[in-house]
């Protein structure tokens, strides 16, 4: 499993390899073997050798290999050193410690370089930061563009379907949600179940374009912010085995929850009393949508999606407004779900290098840099859940304090608004309202950061609450379970029940 540098020249992302020392025999107890075994088992600890290591592991299909005949026990019996698969360990910068370990390997354990091809890799080769755009990258970018196009079409389908299904009775249909707490709960539970605020806000944009009143949609958007923080909270449960690590990870996750809850406590009453966000959203939308102007000539995005949306509408509505509209809504929701899921996956792969650069640049530069970096990373990967979930292991490792990852989390709230804005660009129906709700989403998140982070006595309230909860949950893990079930399901369910009775 040790290779020579020149044999691996087919992989452009290899900067340096490790040259095996052919003179020393392989033994089953040598650290090199256990290193490879633990790499194969996916042990994260095996990947941390020293500070300068940037380790890449490529596993490829191979046959179990026994130790060379030269390695014999004194009794004459050969000792098998079975290996489940061959492993190629490739480094960007060779770690000194591992070089010493690997030098115990024997030449006959080296991999035949011809066996290692791109097809035989079980995991894709990691991206080299300065490598030219490969064919695979170009294909993936095209796929992202297609998926984004389909996302916009899907929002158009929902808008058209909702309009057809409800006619002019959207207000009556959503009368139950005119109670803002009901709207808040619907947004929270829907997002907690779907695990994506981008999906829910895109659906809300489509529904608003189809006639859902903006005033009903605003609390739903606030609820989506709360619901999305369940994802990183569940991710933090994976750190349960080590108490201090769990306390840090759980705090890092719940700081997002507490921030969003505090944001609702501040802005929902303001919205109910003064319609603050609605007014701001309307003003911002008016800069982009001109009343009484022809949309066809100005909105090229809408023109591009018209063939797909128009065709789907044409065939669906042949079944009648109600059924056809319903099918369009369901189709649109499913399509949004699929596109956002795959766009997120693709962008994670494509943008991880850029995300690293941005985060490296933000270290030690203060909270504003953290917020901006969190925003940019979230826009790049198109998922606030990814960014906030990423903060969990970073904080769990102990390298980042809660006050350091907090600004990244706030930036994630802002960065995720891009999806709703994108969705609002090409809706069929009430484009003004769709853009208004998208801007309300953005305004709510930006104002939340400005007010809560800007006011000194409020700034670290979510941090203190999260720290307390993290320590408490680390002592009694049932509290963590109760917290998740309570905040995201039980309390919203009770509120929904009560509001439907009232």
């Amino acid at each position, binding site marked *: 499993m040790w290779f020579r540098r020149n044999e691996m020249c087919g992989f452009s992302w290899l900067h340096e390899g490790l040259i095996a020392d052919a003179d020393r025999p392989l033994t089953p107890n040598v650290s090199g073997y256990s290193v490879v075994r633990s790499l194969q088992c996916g042990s994260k600890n095996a990947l*941390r050798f020293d500070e300068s290591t940037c380790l890449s592991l490529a596993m490829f299909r191979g046959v179990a290999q026994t130790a060379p005949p030269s390695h014999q026990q004194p009794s004459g019996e050969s000792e098998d050193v079975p290996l489940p698969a061959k492993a190629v360990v490739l480094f960007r910068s060779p770690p000194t410690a591992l070089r010493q370990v690997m030098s115990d390997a024997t030449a006959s354990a080296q991999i035949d370089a011809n066996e290692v091809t791109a097809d035989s890799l079980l995991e894709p080769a990691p991206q080299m930061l300065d490598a030219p755009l490969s064919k695979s990258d170009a294909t993936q970018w095209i796929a992202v563009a297609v998926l984004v196009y389909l996302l916009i079409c899907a929002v158009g389908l929902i808008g058209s379907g909702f309009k057809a299904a409800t006619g002019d009775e959207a207000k009556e249909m959503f009368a139950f949600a005119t109670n803002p707490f009901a709207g808040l709960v619907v947004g929270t539970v829907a997002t907690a179940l779907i695990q994506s605020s981008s999906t829910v806000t895109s659906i809300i944009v489509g529904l608003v374009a189809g006639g859902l009143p903006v005033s009903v949609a605003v609390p739903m958007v606030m609820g989506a912010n709360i619901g999305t923080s369940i994802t990183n909270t569940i991710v933090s449960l994976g750190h349960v085995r080590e108490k201090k690590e769990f306390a840090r990870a759980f705090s890092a996750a719940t700081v997002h929850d507490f921030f969003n809850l505090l944001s609702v406590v501040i802005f929902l009453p303001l919205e109910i009393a003064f319609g603050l966000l609605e007014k701001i959203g309307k003003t911002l939308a008016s800069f982009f949508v001109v009343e009484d102007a022809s949309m066809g000539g100005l909105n090229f995005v809408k023109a591009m999606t018209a063939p797909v949306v128009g065709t789907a509408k044409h065939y669906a509505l042949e079944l009648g407004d109600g059924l056809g509209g319903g099918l369009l809504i369901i189709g649109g929701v499913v399509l949004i779900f699929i596109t956002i899921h795959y766009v997120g996956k693709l962008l994670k792969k494509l943008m991880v290098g850029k995300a690293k650069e941005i985060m490296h640049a933000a270290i030690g530069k203060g909270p504003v840099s953290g917020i901006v970096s969190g925003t940019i990373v979230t826009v790049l990967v198109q998922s606030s859940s990814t960014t906030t979930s990423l903060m969990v292991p970073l904080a769990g490792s102990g390298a980042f304090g809660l006050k350091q990852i907090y600004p990244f989390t706030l930036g994630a709230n802002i960065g995720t608004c891009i999806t709703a804005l994108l969705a609002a660009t090409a809706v069929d129906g009430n484009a003004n309202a769709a853009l208004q709700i998208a801007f309300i989403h953005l305004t709510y998140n930006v104002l939340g950061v400005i007010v809560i982070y800007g006011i000194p006595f409020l700034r670290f309230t979510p941090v203190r609450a999260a720290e307390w909860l993290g320590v408490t949950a680390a002592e009694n893990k049932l509290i963590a379970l109760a917290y998740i079930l309570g905040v995201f399901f039980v309390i919203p369910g009770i509120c929904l029940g009560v509001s439907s009775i009232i």
Partner: protein
Amino acid sequence: MTDIKKISTERIRCLIADTESTLRELEAELQRRETEAQDVEIDHLEEHMRGAELSLNSIKEFLTFLLGEYRSKH
């Protein structure tokens, strides 16, 4: 430390200056180490992204741990 009342004023000023300088150096070294540790974690971003993916395993592992704790206490 010897009785500080016996130390001359000049000596005290020197000691304070040395201490402040040492403190600054220690703070800088601490900051450097923390930044380095953070850089290492960010270098492993791909692994963290994989680890941060939501999976039923996290919930399963958590519930198994809870059950194990409950059984060991009772």
